């Protein structure tokens, strides 16, 4: 899409048939179903309001928050401009410290690499640190397809996995579930769980802990994602709240990290900015409880084999779009989801992709090519709340509008909508035509038959409005006519 604009050959996007970047329905259709789920809306309304409040509180206490945001944005922009160099440096440093770097063009290549690495260890079980990249490529399904058992260890991700559900939030994948529903899932799926289990959060956490401990202790291979990778030192970093991630990162013999190529930062000092921005924006904490960093392998301490899989899966195509590339700056905090009035009502599943909410609406269509997720850029009222809270100041509304245009301009044959918009544009460009069009609108008065609102008799798309909202009857004269009659030209 955007590559065409730059006059370059089309860069590969994320392939179809693998991973979780595409839904089966358009956003409006999926949203219509989700909106009917009153429990979902209650759960989401409660959860997002709580996180919003926490975030606002801890952000307000940082006097230089705006400067931090600007710094985050600037570091990301500068890094993207020389992404190739930073990645090669990262590979050099990771290799020098005893790790192995693999380059995966897309989801299929990444899944094949990880599957082969796990199989080479001879194990049949994998424990996982919560990771968006591996959800994106459908790694669990790929590993399960060759007979491996995969255990999610993040509490919310575990709830989703046990419930045979899908994640609906970047940070809190089970945000759509309340504790009564979680209790039901645990009671039904955890082997040997206490039959007296209640929905008390502590009891639920303890049940998950017992279930997971066993797996941590016997796991020989762990798979993680990464929040950051420091090129100059070859350091990977995972930021989390529970400590389950650290269990996976330290206990097994082999650690495999799958990381989107946009996660690299050039220097160790860059982390200073992001480690301030991320926890306050995501969980509303001043600092997250666990920040793990590791570089290569250390003899006698932690995993003795480390593999880093660098994943493209459409990211280079995103990078080629000079407007849309800002989406790659995302640090996956999910603040934009929590403030989004659309997300709060539809939930994450309506977006069809593992990346829901405002960031998902600009990231998923770019990773897959806009035509494979054409309804997502329209899944926003452009209220701007996302841009306001984004810790790296991604101008999400502008990118949404840009992608809408990319979609419109990709149509080979004009749609009815396009013809209508072209006609209207022509009228709005020529005052005499415009005045004629306004006179045409006045024909609505005939349909209104003296009533102040129009009857609900219109075909789509106007029926989309009138199903739930009255439409006023057009006035007899336009404002310009009235004013001119009163005041002259």
């Amino acid at each position: 899409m955007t590559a065409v604009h730059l006059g370059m050959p089309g860069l590969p996007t994320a392939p179809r048939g693998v991973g979780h970047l595409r839904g089966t329905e358009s956003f409006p259709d999926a949203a219509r179903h989700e909106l009917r789920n009153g429990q979902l809306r209650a759960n989401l309304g409660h959860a997002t309001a709580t996180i919003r409040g926490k975030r606002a509180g801890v952000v307000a206490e940082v006097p230089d928050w705006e400067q931090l945001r600007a710094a985050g944005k600037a570091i990301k922009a500068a890094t993207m401009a020389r992404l190739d160099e930073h990645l090669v440096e990262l590979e050099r440093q990771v290799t020098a410290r005893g790790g192995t770097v693999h380059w995966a063009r897309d989801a299929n290549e990444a899944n094949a690499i990880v599957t082969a690495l796990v199989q080479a260890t001879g194990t049949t079980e994998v424990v996982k640190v919560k990771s968006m990249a591996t959800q994106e490529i459908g790694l669990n399904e790929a590993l399960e397809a060759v007979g491996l058992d995969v255990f999610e260890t993040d509490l919310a991700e575990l709830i989703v996995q046990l419930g045979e559900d899908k994640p609906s939030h970047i940070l809190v994948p089970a945000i759509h579930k309340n504790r009564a529903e979680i209790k039901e899932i645990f009671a039904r799926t955890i082997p040997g769980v206490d039959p007296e289990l209640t929905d008390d959060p502590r009891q639920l956490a303890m049940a998950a802990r017992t279930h997971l401990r066993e797996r941590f202790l016997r796991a020989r291979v762990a798979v993680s994602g990464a929040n950051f990778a420091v090129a100059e030192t070859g350091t990977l970093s995972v930021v989390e709240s529970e400590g389950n991630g650290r269990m996976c990162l330290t206990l097994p013999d082999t650690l495999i990290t799958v990381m989107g190529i946009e996660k690299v930062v050039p220097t160790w000092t860059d982390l200073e900015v992001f480690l301030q921005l991320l926890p306050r924006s995501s969980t509303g904490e001043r600092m997250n409880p666990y920040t793990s960093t590791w570089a290569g392998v250390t003899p006698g301490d932690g995993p003795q084999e480390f593999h880093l899989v660098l994943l493209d899966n459409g990211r280079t195509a995103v990078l080629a779009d000079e407007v849309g590339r800002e989406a790659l700056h995302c640090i996956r905090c999910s603040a934009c989801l929590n403030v989004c009035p659309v997300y709060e009502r539809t939930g994450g599943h309506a977006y069809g992709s593992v990346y829901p909410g405002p960031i998902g609406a600009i990231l998923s269509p770019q990773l897959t090519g806009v035509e494979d997720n054409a309804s997502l850029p329209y899944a926003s009222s452009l209220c701007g709340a996302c841009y306001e809270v984004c810790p790296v100041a991604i101008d999400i509304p502008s990118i949404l509008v840009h992608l809408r245009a990319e979609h419109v301009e990709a149509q080979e044959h004009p749609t009815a909508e396009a013809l209508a918009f072209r006609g209207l544009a022509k009228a709005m460009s020529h005052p005499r035509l415009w005045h004629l069009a306004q006179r045409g609108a006045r024909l609505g008065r005939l349909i209104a038959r003296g009533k102040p609102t129009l009857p609900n008799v219109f075909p789509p798309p106007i029926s989309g409005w009138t199903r739930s909202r009255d439409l006023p009857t057009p006035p007899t004269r336009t404002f310009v006519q009235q004013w001119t009659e009163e005041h002259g030209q």
Partner: protein
Amino acid sequence: MKVSLFATCLVDTMTPSVGMATGRLLQRLGQDVVVPPTQACCGQMHVNTGYRREALGIVANHVRAFAGAEAIVAPSGSCVASIHHQQAAVARRAGDEALAQAAEELAGRTYELSQFLVDVLGVTDVGAYYPHRVTYHPTCHSLRLLEVGDRPQRLLRAVRGLELVELPGAEQCCGFGGTFAVKNADTSTAMLTDKMAAVLSTHAEVCTAGDASCLMHIGGGLSRLRAGTRTVHLAEILASTEQSTHPTTPTDAVTPHQTTHPSVPA
């Protein structure tokens, strides 16, 4: 000051009372108001729906219609934000640098009504009288793109007889979003429902805002519910005085059925 009034396509075509109120308010404050008759639209609906190429002619018409204006005032945060943030970009992408510069130059002299009153004219008490219980919805583009802040509330607090009540969850979008209201009608309606619940919880007689588009949305929903609360544009409240609060013809109401009673005869 010679003030050129940009009514916006929606006000011009659907709610002329808002344009009349804006013009009369500015005249009452001693401004020389002109209404360029060739004005049409800022182009925002086209840009935001994906028709940025088609918007070029609309931007060009806007720039022609207002060329040479000393100051331009519009009763819409959203359209003024589009003039500030989108018009030049539309021209530049189409390779028309001269139009882009003309649009930028014009944008520098274009103000949303509350900004013009407070920042340019330096008034908060515009001498209005409006004896009603009113709640204010800060429209998203006024709030986040133009950052009008509390200017509208300062203007409203100075209105004699007006009781201003706080709107819970005021900063949440009403769900309008231009073509979003139609393309994602169900989600838009869900957002509107929550906004209406908040408005109704205030027991206000009137919900006001600085954008006729959002008000048509909220008002259209309230009208469908046969709710007693009506929507009235900020300009209409500020334009009303002791002499002009009597209801006029209901055909000019912003949201008919609820007889918005434009404060000035339109």
